[in-house]
Every structure is written in structure tokens, then in C-alpha cells.
């Protein structure tokens, strides 16, 4: 879309200067501290991020009973996992639901009104998810959209599209890839991408 519009050549330099000016004024006026923005960003580097979702999915792959509980009551199942950081029911994760891909079913999470995303387990939404073109098209033609991500979902597989229009935050449990039988949970978690947990990709073995 953006090639249809004219932008000034210094588009980013202007925004960078304005963002820095705003932060400076907020610090000087005592609204935030000089450390506050970095404090926020550090939470998303260390505590809330897709590394948590990947661990949850890997556990679901090795423990079918856990996977069932994860789908039936997502927050309670996540609370069972003691190796996750504090805050798994925190901001934008107060009410989460997981849906599982499987034989004949592929799930896709969207937010046609904005960009609702399960922060504690997936961190912040990637640009593709926030883009109005994706949000518009994925509702009516999800298979065509998935093809543009390189994912071919056969017509025989039902595509379930979940629009996050209220307060529930959704994520997908992708299918465990073939050829991963001997892998540890940590090795399995490394195969799980944010895209696979939103449904525009699948988890791959290599």
C-alpha cells in the first residue's frame, strides 16, 4: 500500500526527533523517569516474549494431557509451568485461549479492529499482524493470504479464523513437525516461531 503515498525523504529522521523530543519533555516534567522506557523494553526482552509461548507449545507436544488442558483452560495450564517468568496472566494476557492445529484443521489468529496480541506468551506483535492489508484480507481470503506467507493449506483442511474483537487473547498450538521424535523440549521450543503461534506458518523441523 505505502508505495501509493508520497512521504518526505526525512520521514524517519523527523519521527525519531519527535519521539525523542516527547520523551525528553516527559522526563523533564516528571511524568516518566529517564529509565522508564528502557524498563518497559527490558520486560519484553527478558520476561514477556515468544520464548514463553515456544516453551508452552513444546510442553504440549511432549505431553498430550497438558495439551488438552491448555486448550480447555489456557491460563490454568500455563500456570502449571514453573519455568516461566512471573506475569503470564499480566498485561494483554489476562484472558487467553489457545487453539490447536491438527489433522484437517488449521487456525489463524487475526484482529480486524486493531492489533490484539497475547503479550505474556508472544511478546509484541510483528509488523505483518498490525498491517491493515493483512487485517482486511485474512478475514475473507485466509488461504490466499497464507499463500503469500509461503503456506499452502489444502482445501480439505478447514481454516478457522479467530477475530480478537473483545478481551480474549488467542494463540495457536502448531503441529509438532515430523522427524523430531528424539528432541528435547528445549530443542523443540527452538522450532516454534511467533508466526507459527499465530497461524501464518507451521513449525518446521529444520
Amino acid at each position: 500500500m505505502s508505495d501509493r503515498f508520497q512521504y518526505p525523504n526525512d520521514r524517519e529522521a523527523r519521527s525519531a526527533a519527535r519521539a525523542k523530543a516527547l520523551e525528553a519533555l516527559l522526563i523533564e516534567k516528571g511524568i516518566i523517569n529517564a529509565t522508564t522506557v528502557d524498563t518497559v523494553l527490558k520486560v519484553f526482552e527478558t520476561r514477556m516474549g515468544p520464548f514463553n509461548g515456544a516453551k508452552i507449545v513444546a510442553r504440549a507436544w511432549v505431553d498430550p494431557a497438558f495439551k488438552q488442558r491448555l486448550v480447555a483452560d489456557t491460563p490454568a495450564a500455563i500456570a502449571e509451568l514453573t519455568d516461566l517468568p512471573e506475569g503470564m496472566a499480566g498485561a494483554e494476557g489476562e484472558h487467553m485461549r489457545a487453539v490447536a492445529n491438527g489433522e484437517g484443521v488449521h487456525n489463524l489468529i487475526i484482529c480486524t479492529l486493531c492489533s490484539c496480541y497475547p503479550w505474556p506468551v508472544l511478546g509484541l506483535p510483528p509488523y505483518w499482524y498490525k498491517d491493515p492489508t493483512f487485517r482486511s484480507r485474512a478475514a475473507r481470503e485466509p488461504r490466499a493470504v497464507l499463500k503469500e506467507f509461503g503456506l499452502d493449506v489444502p482445501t480439505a483442511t478447514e481454516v478457522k479464523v479467530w477475530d480478537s474483537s473483545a478481551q480474549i487473547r488467542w494463540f495457536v498450538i502448531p503441529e509438532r513437525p515430523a522427524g523430531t521424535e528424539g528432541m528435547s523440549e528445549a530443542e523443540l521450543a527452538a522450532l516454534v516461531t511467533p508466526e507459527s503461534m499465530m497461524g501464518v506458518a507451521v513449525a518446521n523441523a529444520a
Partner: protein
Amino acid sequence: MKLQHYLGGLESLGPVSTETRVFVEEWEKRIFGIHTAMMALSSQLPLPATPSAFRTVWTWADLRKGAEAMNPFDYFKYRYYEKWLGGICGYFVANGYITEEELEARTAEYYADPDKPLPQDSAAPAAGTTIDQRVERYLMEGDSPKSDLDIAPAFKEGDAVHIRNVPSIVHTRLPGFLRNRSGVVETVYPGAYGYLTDTGTDGIGAPMPVYCVRFAVEELWPGNTEPNVTLYADLYATYVATAA
């Protein structure tokens, strides 16, 4: 009618972006951090007071209202965090925290010298809960909209329902493509859910049941969708009515 409320199903937009980064410019991280701090310091939250001079309400609803109030072509023109930057600067000016003139003057300084450092805090942190502690606590605890109010849901799983076309003006959580359509209740969520703000004639704000409703895409876009697709949307009870 706002195009931003009717994005689902809009046609002829061209290929999707497959950009997997969260931030594509360093400055975007700063405006994200400012927004999140504002949400954490927002005055309606039951969190410990801090020395922050922020004394008003800022929630997702305020950010969304700003984006939904934009010229729809500008909404497509500007990247995600460009919209945030515009909306958040506008809020601080409109609420008297800063003036447009000082923001312009400071912007010119950083434009001329992008490496000029940010200022330091003017005073040593006061005793009690610091701003950063409250921000971290907000992120860890969240702000659940769920209420224990015992409101009996009007529908049960499997019920056929009609989606109302409520008069939304400033803000809504009812996607346009579902208005006046029929669906089937897939899930009745336990409890009741409030919304961050009162949307007036649109009808949300006070706690009410929320349903996950299932739609056949062939009924949403007859002859103009794909086979074997089902669409689900979480909808506040005020949007959901008895099937005709």
C-alpha cells in the same frame, strides 16, 4: 461511518506485508515504551501512587479512538507506530502537559543533533513506589476487565443469533463486516467483561457477557470467499440479539 471499523473484508489492497520485525526503526521502541508507561500510570488503575505528574486516564481505548478518528487514507498511509506517535503527542498537548510549541522546538533540536542525549531526571527518586516499579507491576499484573457480577447470559452454546447494527460513533468493538449478519454461539465465556471506556450508543463499557460467535464465511461474503473456512469473533452481549 469510519472505514477503520469496517476493515475486515475490504478488497483490492494488494499483497500483505510479511515483515516479521516488531519495530522497524529504533524510535518506534521509544513511543511504544511511552505508551505502555502511560497505561501503567493511568489514574483509574488500583495501583500504588507514584511521584509521576501524570494524572489523567490513558488506556488502549484512547489509543484506538485516536487511530479510528484519523482520515482513513492517512490511516493506511502511516505505519503503525507513526500513528501512535501522532496520537500520543496530540494527547499530551490536548491535556495541557506540554505545548505544541515546546514539542516543535525540542524536535528541531533533536533533528539537528540526533545524538544529543536525553535529559536526566530533575530530582532524585522520591521514597515510596517509583514510576518504574508501578510500570513493571502493571505489566506483571495486567488490568483484567473481567467482573464477578452474576449476569445470566441470554444465549447458550449452539443458539442461532443475529448481530445488531448498533450506532457506533467514536469507537466500537463490533467489526463492521459482522453487522446485520447471523451466527451461532460457539462459546459462552464465564463471568462478565467490562470495556475500557463507555462507547455510548455503541453500547459497551459496563460488565456484560461475552460470546464467541461462529460465522459461515459464505454467508458473510456470498460467492466471494474461500471454501472450508469458518470465522469466529468474540462479541460483547450488547451486540448479539435473538435470531429473526
